[in-house]
C-alpha cells in the first residue's frame, strides 16, 4: 500500500480524473472530499463488506443441513 502524508487542504490525484482532498482532520476522523466522474462508484468499504456478507448469509442452509447445523450451534 502506498502511504502518503497529507494535511488539510492538500489533495491527491488518482489517474487523470479523480481527485481526493483532505478537507479537515480531527480526533474523530478525516473529512475527505472526492471529485470523480459521475459514473465512478464510491462506497464506504464497510458497505461493500456488508453487501458481500449479506450475500453469504443469504445462502443460508439447505433444509437437510438446518437441523444438523443448528444442533451443532446448540453445542
Amino acid at each position: 500500500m502506498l502511504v502518503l502524508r497529507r494535511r488539510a487542504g492538500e489533495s491527491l490525484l488518482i489517474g487523470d480524473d479523480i481527485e481526493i482532498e483532505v478537507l479537515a482532520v480531527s480526533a474523530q476522523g478525516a473529512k475527505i472530499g472526492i471529485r470523480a466522474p459521475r459514473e465512478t462508484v464510491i462506497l464506504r468499504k464497510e458497505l461493500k463488506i456488508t453487501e458481500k456478507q449479506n450475500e453469504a448469509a443469504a445462502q443460508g442452509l439447505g433444509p437437510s443441513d438446518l437441523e444438523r447445523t443448528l444442533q451443532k450451534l446448540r453445542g
Partner: protein
Amino acid sequence: MPRHVACSVPGGMPQVQTRYFGSMTYREESVFEFPAGLPGFIQEKRFVPIEVPQHSPLIFLQSLAQPTLCFLSFPILVVDPEYRLAVAREDLLALALNPDRQPQLGTEVAVLALLSFRDQLPATANLMAPVVVNLKTQRALQAIRQDQVYSHQHPVQPRASEQLC
C-alpha cells in the same frame, strides 16, 4: 425481543411462502419494514421474523417478496452478552429514534446479528452490521458501525444459544 411467532393457524391472516417451513400465516404488524432494503438486497423491504420453539433463540428473517430468501439471525446478546450498540446518528434518524443517545436494547429496539454458514467452518455472526428494529414502528435497517470494534465474521460459539433466553 420480538415475540411475534408466525404460526400455521388459519383464519384470514396473510400467508407467506417460507424457505424452511413451507407456507405460513403471519401477522401484518409483526413485519419488519426496511425502507432502504439491506445492502446487497435493496429491493427487499419487508421481512417477517419467524421464531420456532425447537430452534430458539434463532430468528428466521423471511423475505415476503422472495420465498427463497431467508436470513438466519440471533438476538445480538446471544452472540455477545456484552455487545455495545453504536448506531450512527443518521441511522437513528432514519429509524425515528432519538439521535442523541443509543437506544435501549430490548425495549426500544431489537438488534439481530445475521448468521453465515460455510461448509465445515463455524457459523459466524455479523456484529459489524446488525439489523436494528424500532420496536414501536417495526421500522428496521442494517446499521453499519463506523468503528472497528466488532467483526463482520464473529465466530459463534456452540452453546451461545444457552447464554440468554
